[in-house]
């Protein structure tokens, strides 16, 4: 067991973990942040995406110890200060971009990372960026719409194309 210290959603946290403990298991277990999900064991589904030092990372593909000293942001840290939904979250609700909600935290975290780098992505860019996030419920239609809307683009015009 080794001690690891990091900042999660702005709060300093620390805990004792094994060398093999994954970041996602540290978040879900000791920290109780169960919004980050585990959908696979081959790092392909993206249900576990969080931000580590501002970058989108699959938390199942990183050891907790590797996040020593890092700033981590999870779905629990995405709402506005007053607790209302953030822009991307609100767009997902408005455009029905989720059904069972299991892929959703990862989708929102990936979308946030995309929009940070590319504030007005095209439909094709969004679809390509989501290559590492699998959703089994929505057929992606409304997820793509939600991300277009969150970036301030005219959704009906693009989706009608």
């Amino acid at each position: 067991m080794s001690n690891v210290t990091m900042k999660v959603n702005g709060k300093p946290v620390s805990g004792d973990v094994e060398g093999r403990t994954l970041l996602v298991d540290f978040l879900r277990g000791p920290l109780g942040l169960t919004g980050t999900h585990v959908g696979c064991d081959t790092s392909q589904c993206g249900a576990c995406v969080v931000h580590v030092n501002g970058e989108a990372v699959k938390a199942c593909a990183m050891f907790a110890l590797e996040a020593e000293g890092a700033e981590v942001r999870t779905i629990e840290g995405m709402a506005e200060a007053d607790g209302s939904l953030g822009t991307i979250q609100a767009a997902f609700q408005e455009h029905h971009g989720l059904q069972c909600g299991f892929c959703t935290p990862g989708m929102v975290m990936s979308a946030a990372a995309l929009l940070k780098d590319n504030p007005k992505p095209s439909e094709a860019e969004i679809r390509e960026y989501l290559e590492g996030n699998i959703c089994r419920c929505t057929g992606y239609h409304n997820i793509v719409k939600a991300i277009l809307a969150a970036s301030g683009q005219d959704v009906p015009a693009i989706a009608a194309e």
Partner: protein
Amino acid sequence: MPKDHGIGASTKRREDVRFLTGKGRYTDDININGQAYAWFVRSDVAHGTLNGVDTADAAAMPGVLRIFTGADFEAVGGIPCGWQVTDRKGEVMLEPRHPVLAHGKVRHVGDPIAVVVAETLEQARDAAEAVVPDITELEPVLDMKAAVQGGPLVHDEIGSNLCYDWGFVEENKEAVDAAIKGAHHVTTLELVNNRLIANPMEPRVAVGDYAQHDDSSTLYTTSQNPHVIRLLMGAFVLGIPEHKLRVVAPDVGGGFGTKIFHYAEEAFVTFAAKELKRAVKWTATRSEAFISDAHGRDHVTKIELALDADGHFLALRTDTYANMGAYLSTFAPSVPTWLHGTLMAGNYKTPLIYVNVKAVFTNTVPVDAYRGAGRPEATFQLERVIDKAAREMGVDPIELRRKNFITEFPYATPVAVEYDTGDYHATMDKLLEIADVAGFDARLAKSKANGKLRGLGMNCYIEACGIAPSNLVGQLGARAGLYESATVRVNATGGLVVMTGSHSHGQGHETSFPQVIAEMIGIDENMVEIVHGDTANTPMGMGTYGSRSLAVGGSAMVRATEKIIAKAKKIAAHILEASDADIELKDGSFTVAGTDKSLAWGDVCLAAYVPHNYPLADLEPGLEETAFYDPANFTYPSGAYACEVEVDPETGKVTIERFAAADDFGNIVNPMIVDGQVHGGIAQGIGQALMEGASYDEAGQLVSGSYMDYTMPRADDLPFYTVDHSCQTPCTHNPLGVKGCGEAGAIGSPPSVVNAVVDALQRAGHTNVTHIDMPLSPARVWAAMQG
């Protein structure tokens, strides 16, 4: 103007807020004080004699509490099957024992052999590696035809791999044979409906808990139907009476059928928690899900369609081998029979139909219902053979369909069901419009200029949802009722809680169900709360599958609410000193007809619980009602789908360029949610048609056992879809006039994709290509183009 509340409004989903902020409560999010962790040791061979399991070294490892093997489960029941099919000769199907943990033999890769329970997950996993099963490998049987022609026996004790040989309608067989023999034209098609893995994004999880103070067990599980699990596991496996057993299915991350069934892991954690007197948790890895979740489809079919010279359908005959896998999963026997044979008429007036199905045991993971369950298999073969017939006879495939459409309702098919309503020309007309079929030639020219082949495929579908009524399905072999329940509890201050037997795992019941009640009473949707998924606080229900929630569960809720309203009117009549026949409820207030005397909804609710001015001699206080609704018939959604593809002639890669769906779901409660259901179904159907396929090698190893090998559709594989449900012929026998929309997309889309690819190849001169088996991978399409 679209409505902004009540029935017909696209109310935004209230459950989204918790899912979008990480506050969902899925089964794996549940941790019980002092819980131990289970890790399953599974067979890595497809077939073998299990001589024993050496657990000595593992048992001595740190943290290990106990190791369970098949011997521990000899005294309990096997995993039961919920449907007994009777074969052509009137004999019941062969039903082998399905032990919780393998005993004597292992029958598929993934068959559970032993379970290590330890203090931590890591300790359980480490110790599991030290468990040594002693297995003498046997030759596996994987091919269905080989299995029934003297292949190795999966279950020695039943003496055959043929579970049943079913004929439907048996009395029609001779007439069908004769009609096909004498027909002007017969089109024959042999095809495979590929084996799929449902892959809800949340892997299965089960947490067993045991309370010593009252000797009661609780199971938290990723299930679509907690009451059914409680009944099957309590009564047939563990012998726990239902009043000592609670099953909770909290937020569930998608189901698609594979979370209907009762699984060994659920029985295991419940059993082990009681043995160890502490909670036991099991969470599947995705790799484990691939080899332990029931798979779907896997039919091999030959279909023959007989036509007269004018293109009228005369008779249809189909022969199907349906894979059951190594054991009978909960509803497996019903899928290729009653959920498949009864749908073979499709949208057409075919007077004579005969369906033969041979269900076969093989050394593979059990196969059961997956989104659509039997209906996609029926639709695929029918809509493919019609396309092929049109080509052979040189007629337009849409015209051929139109010529044979059923146009008068109710319509009794030759396969024992009666369609109540539908308008197949209307959905076809709507499809041609929304798919812009008129613009196809221009798009074709553009594709050609880009060096691509382009094709257009269309098809119709009919679905049967809300399988019912219970007395009929009982005769067909169901060992369950197929009603649904709801308790509506009105609180003293006017808010309502609906406890429904339906279960939401993405369908949005918490939003759509209140829309119905709010409309009936005339109150705000936010005054209604939905409770589901917990046997402790909901009436006995059958759960959610087969697109039944609104048609059956919603109807139960309507019936219970009608009782509430009737009683509330009596209370209002007493207070307003009028006769209850004169009381009207509108916009949340009760008025005496023709007067301005009125009473608010909340005042009546309060009176029900503070019955001071109340007809106590005639009426009990309180305002709470329960209804069980058992439908008179199935509902029959229908529709027409169109797909346009481009094919790269160099590589065989298919891309979906356009996809349109015109559905008739009857009345619609929440159009936004309905659109979403169709989108998701289409994506799964396109996945089946182009990408997905569970594949076994000769040794019985699942070679598509992870997301690296099993191709899940991703965002960049799919286009935006054009969906429409403005054609509405309401169901005539349920109070909401709704039909169900959950599976349509997955049923309707595979044939249009394959029809489109065949069309593209035909247009490019590959006239010998009449069919390609799914999934239409680049390799298969390329090979088809080579001749």
